[in-house]
């Protein structure tokens, strides 16, 4: 799988920089480029379209305010922005518990994250997404499901336990071991991760 050099990240970073200094075209392009991923994650976690839109808008504004903290050497803009989105969504859900169980929604989420997407996005985003999915596919199916539910679905370990009908301890073990395996794979540079 092709590597993701830092130079490719810089194109996204240039848009973020342009948005930070108030460039209207850069801001518009930035929002359009990332809105599908941001709204998708917000919806996956909140399972409420109205709340997801609020979360997505807040995440974009937070990104604009925090543009100065972005470090192109540490992560891609996509990862950085999705981390902001996830934190915002988790906070929003925490204040609104309980969220809808959304069994069908979670079923769809698990299905969608198990195969390569057909993204109308830039090549670098497609590569980054395909890489993340490829890493998930290297886990056992049980681990992958637990990780997807916990990370992208925003589920607590208890919610993963209830949904998967497994003991809480088993759910935590699957999530933790899955994350450790993912980290090991990324650190080892499998599937062409470029940290340099």
């Amino acid at each position: 799988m092709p590597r993701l050099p830092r130079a490719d990240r810089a194109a996204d970073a240039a848009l973020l920089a342009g948005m930070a200094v108030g460039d209207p075209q850069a801001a518009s392009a930035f929002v359009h480029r990332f809105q599908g991923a941001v709204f998708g994650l917000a919806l996956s976690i909140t399972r409420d379209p109205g709340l997801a839109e609020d979360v997505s808008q807040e995440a974009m504004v937070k990104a604009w305010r925090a543009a100065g903290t972005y470090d192109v050497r540490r992560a891609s803009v996509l990862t950085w922005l999705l981390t902001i989105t996830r934190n915002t969504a988790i906070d929003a859900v925490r204040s609104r518990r309980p969220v809808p169980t959304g069994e069908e929604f979670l079923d769809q989420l698990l299905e969608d994250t198990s195969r390569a997407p057909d993204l109308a996005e830039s090549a670098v985003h497609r590569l980054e997404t395909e890489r993340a999915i490829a890493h998930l596919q290297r886990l056992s199916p049980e681990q992958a499901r637990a990780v997807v539910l916990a990370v992208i679905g925003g589920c607590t370990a208890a919610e993963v336990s209830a949904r998967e009908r497994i003991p809480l301890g088993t759910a935590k073990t699957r999530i933790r071991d899955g994350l450790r395996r993912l980290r090991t794979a990324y650190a080892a540079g499998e599937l062409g991760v470029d940290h340099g």
Partner: protein
Amino acid sequence: MADHPHPDLVLDLSLGHLAGPQRDALADHLSGCLACRAELDELSAAVESTLAAVPRTEPPPGFAASVLDRLDPPVHAIAPRGPEQGRPEQGRPERQRPRVPAWVGMAAAAVLGLGVGTVGTLALGEGLGGAPGTEVPAAGGGQRPGEPDPTQPLPATGATLTTEDGTAVGTVSRSYGEAGPMLVVEITGGEPGRTYLCRLRMADGAAEDVGRWNLSPERPNSWVVVDPGAEVVELVSDSGNVWSSAIL
């Protein structure tokens, strides 16, 4: 350090599900325990790396416009011309603007392309560990009904890049970053695969070549270049003819 917290708490924190006193207590422990800190960092990094797998979902119509309106000041309202664009308006407190990131210059340099000159080349080499001479251009995302088309220039923002027969093929906008005045060049027309030299012409007639760019099929093709005070931007084909130009 004795009495490590239960590993489940570190996992919960990495997933964002720890709050209140439990989170505070764990934070205290982490500040002095390298082993637990390393565990948290490992799990958090894995969480971040997985996020890109999220299925994309288009937001409701009007989403982008709502976001842009929430920026302070709304980016729709920024005066489109002049080298001061992007700087805080007179009388507006500096703190209301986002901090201009230190990597602005690096990011700009990374999309400068060939022949950018010493400043851009050095910034690229020091900050990004090297980059190809011809950069992959930035590309636009999807469009929602009722929202501005990202493949088309926004109204009254920037000068239009036109070919000799008057066809609009993009825009050039002035911007500003830590590296100083910048130009944002967005190309919406042209044939993918074609390569053009970007030449800036100053008021005194001097010319400066700032990059050689290859058009991607993904639109718009966007680049940011340091602005030495250009009056005209020209895109020159390999044959030496001016394909399109914009008067700033």
